[in-house]
C-alpha cells in the first residue's frame, strides 16, 4: 500500500445511476453482457479490484451492507473510505462478496429463508473474460429462448455448485460476473447447461 487513495465516482449521483441500470439490465436479462462505459473519469480502483466490480460495490454497498472481499488491504481501505461499508471476515455474514480469487463455497453464503429469500448474499466474481453467444446455454426468467455465455476463469466445479444453488430456489445467492468493465449476471433462477 502506497498510502494514497484513488478516487471513487467522479459524478456520484449520475455514475451510481448508470451503474445500477447496467446491473438491473444484467439481472433482468441473465447472460447478456453489459459494459460500464461512460463513467467520468473511469474508475481506477486498487488492484486486483476490477472497474466493473468496484463500480458495483460503490453503487450498492454502504453502511447497511456487510461486505466480504479477498482483494487485499488496499481494496478494503478503498471500499471502506468510498462506500463506508463494514468489512467482515466470515463469508456467511456478508450481503455482498467480492471474490477475485477462488470464491467461498456457494452453500456457505447467506441463502435467505423460505419466508425471506431476499435476505441472501450477492456474490461478485472477477473472471478473466465474458463473451456472449458461445459456451453455457442459459434459460429461465429474463431469457426469451436461450442466451449463450462463455465465462473464462471460473473455479473448478462451478457448474455443479450453481446447480445446487438453483435447486434451493427461492433461497439461494445471486451472482454478478465481472471482467474489466464488462458485467453479466446470473440470478438464482437461471438454469445453466454446458453447451
Amino acid at each position, binding site marked *: 500500500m502506497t498510502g*494514497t*487513495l*484513488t*478516487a*471513487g*465516482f467522479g*459524478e*456520484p*449521483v*449520475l*455514475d*451510481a*445511476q*448508470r451503474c*445500477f*441500470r447496467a*446491473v*438491473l439490465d444484467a*439481472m*433482468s*436479462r441473465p447472460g447478456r453482457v453489459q459494459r460500464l462505459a461512460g463513467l467520468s*473519469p473511469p474508475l481506477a480502483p486498487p488492484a486486483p479490484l476490477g472497474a466493473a466490480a468496484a463500480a458495483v460495490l*460503490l*453503487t*450498492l*454497498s*454502504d453502511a*447497511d*451492507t456487510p461486505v466480504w472481499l479477498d482483494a487485499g488491504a488496499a481494496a478494503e481501505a478503498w471500499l471502506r*473510505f*468510498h*462506500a*463506508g461499508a463494514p468489512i467482515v471476515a466470515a463469508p456467511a455474514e456478508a*450481503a455482498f462478496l467480492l471474490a477475485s480469487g477462488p470464491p467461498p463455497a456457494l452453500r456457505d453464503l447467506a441463502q435467505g*429463508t*423460505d*419466508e*425471506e*429469500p*431476499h435476505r*441472501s448474499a*450477492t456474490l461478485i466474481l472477477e473472471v478473466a473474460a465474458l463473451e456472449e453467444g458461445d459456451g453455457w446455454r442459459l434459460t429461465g*426468467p*429474463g*431469457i*426469451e429462448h436461450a442466451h449463450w455465455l462463455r465465462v473464462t476463469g471460473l473455479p473448478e466445479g462451478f457448474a455443479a455448485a450453481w446447480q445446487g444453488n438453483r435447486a434451493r*430456489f*427461492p433461497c439461494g445467492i*445471486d451472482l454478478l460476473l465481472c471482467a474489466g468493465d464488462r458485467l453479466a449476471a446470473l*440470478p*438464482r*433462477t437461471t438454469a445453466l447447461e454446458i453447451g
Partner: protein
Amino acid sequence: MTAPIRSAQGGAPAGVEHRNRGPAGQISGYNVGYLDENTKRMIRRALLKAVAIPGHQVPFGSREMPLPYGWGTGGIQVTAAVIGPGDTLKVIDQGADDTTNAVSIRRFFAKVAGVATTERTAAASIIQTRHRIPETPLREGQVLVYQVPMPEPLFRLEPRVAETKRMHALADYSLMHVKLYEDIARHGHIATSYNYPVMVGGRYLMSPSPIPSFDNPKMHRMPALQLFGAGREKRIYAVPPYTDVRSLDFEDHPFEPIRADAACALCGSRESYLDEVVTDDAGGRMFVCSDTDYCTTRQAGREAAE
C-alpha cells in the same frame, strides 16, 4: 495525487455541486430524482433481489414523499431509484396521460430529475402506471413501473402478514383457489374483473395491482421489465422479461379477460379496453378507450387516411 478525493457515498459535497447543474427546468435544492443516495441504494438493492425472485415481495424502507399515500408513492420511489438523464418518462393513470395524477408525477420528475417526458408509449423508456398496461405492446429495454395500493394478494382472505408470509413460503395458495371456486359456485363464473391474482414463474402468487383482468395476459412473457412499488405497504416486487405469468383458473372454468362489448366511440377500436362514460342524466353513455395515447394515435391515423 492531483485529483480531489471525494467520498462517493456521503452525498453532501458532491450533492451540492449537482444541485446547481442539470438541464433547464430542473429545480435546485434537491438531489437528482428527489430521494437521497442512501435511500436510492436501499431501493436498488431491493429491486435487484425482487428481479432475482420473480413475484416475491421484498420489504423496503418506504420514505415520505411530497404527495399522500394512494397517489403512487411506491411507484414514484421505484422510478426515482431507476431514472437517469437518458430516460424518457411516460406516466398514465387508468390509461390516461392527462389526469391530475399522471400530469403531476410527470412534472415532478421533469423538475427533480430533469428528464424528458412523453405521452407516446413507444417513445418512453420508463412508463409509470396506475392500474393499466398500455395497449401498444411494450418492447425489450422498456421498464414498466406499477403503483400498487395492496401488494398482498391474500390480504382479503388472511389479514395477518405473518400468516401470508408463511403461505408464500410454503406456496400454499389453496385459500385463493377456494375463493375462486366460491365465486363459481355463487355466480357461475369467476367474478373478479380487476386485481385478478396471477402465478409468477409457477411459484409465487402475485397481485397484478388493480389492473383490469383484460390486461393480465399482457404480463405473460412481456419483453419489458415490470417493477411494482407499494409505498404505504412498503413492498417492492418484480417480474423480469419473458417470465411466465398465469392468471389462476380451473380446467373447466378457464380464465377469461373481461371487456365491455362495444367499440370505442372515438376511434372505433374493438380490441382495446374501454371506459364507460356517462354523458347525461337520462341514461346516455358512451364507451371510449381507456388508453388515451392508443386512442389519439388511431384517431390521427384515421384522419390522415380520410
